[in-house]
């Protein structure tokens, strides 16, 4: 549970850096002053006292770095900094940015287009909820039905929810002026 609490605090700390930085600087300065006072009281000169206090602390920036690592979420902060840096770079080079954005837009648009077509034609299933209810209707054995009749059947019947029709068209495919042996049957 303490990890959850710590995690919340660290996430929240991402948004309060200014104040926390000031607090940290104040706290470390206070530490140095206290230590310097003690050293002076022990007989050191003020300069030596201060220098000794700084050495004992281990380097103010180093302490601050370790403190910052614990305070925030370093990985996230690094990523955010990189993002900000990248954005600034892009703003400085508008021609490149325009080209890159245009290329990406075209790429995405083409992909969406191709996929939509493929999806509609190939991937998406037919809007039939229950295949068991699909029937094939004939008028006269397997003979053809006139189109006008089909329209009437479709619109006026009361048994079927919908009616579709299709036609077979045998095709001969020619190639290079020769009569091709291949015959396309739909």
């Amino acid at each position, binding site marked *: 549970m303490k990890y959850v609490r710590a995690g919340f605090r660290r996430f929240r700390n991402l948004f309060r850096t200014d104040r926390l930085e000031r607090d940290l600087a104040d706290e470390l300065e206070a*530490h140095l002053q206290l230590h310097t006072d003690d050293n002076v009281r022990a007989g050191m000169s003020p300069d030596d006292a201060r220098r000794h206090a700084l050495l004992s602390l281990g380097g103010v920036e180093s*302490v601050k770095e370790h403190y910052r690592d614990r305070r925030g979420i370093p990985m996230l902060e690094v990523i955010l900094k990189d993002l900000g840096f990248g954005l600034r770079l892009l703003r400085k080079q508008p021609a490149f940015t325009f080209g890159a954005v245009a290329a990406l837009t075209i790429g995405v648009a083409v992909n969406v287009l191709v996929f939509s077509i493929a999806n509609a034609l190939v991937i998406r299933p037919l809007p039939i909820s229950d295949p068991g209810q699909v029937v094939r209707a004939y008028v006269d054995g397997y003979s053809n039905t006139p189109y006008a009749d089909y329209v009437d059947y479709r619109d006026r019947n009361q048994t079927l929810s919908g009616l579709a029709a299709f036609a077979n068209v045998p095709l001969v495919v020619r190639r290079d002026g020769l009569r091709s042996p291949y015959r396309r049957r739909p």
Partner: protein
Amino acid sequence: MAKTDVWQGTLALMVLRTLETMGPQHGYGLARRIEQTSGAQLSVNYGTIYPALLKLEQEGYVVSEWGASDNNRRAKFYRLTRSGRRQVARIAGEWQQTTAIVTRFLASSEGSS
């Protein structure tokens, strides 16, 4: 890497225990006192105490507030919370148990060789 983890855990325990016996204290005072009590193990780097204090505060074992030190300097004081007290008792118990087990183990193996 493991050595740093053990050290940080030990430091956290020492901070909590020092706050328990000394009462509210600022970072410098804690570092000084721990140095005295632990026999100069911490004299190298007082700075390590601040990340440790931050961790303890984030975990809810201590709270901090600004106050005045003995020589009237402004300093950030740390104080044990109730869950901090429970934590000291718990870890102290674990340490004593571990020490007892290891001591007994080491003592017994001397006889067999």
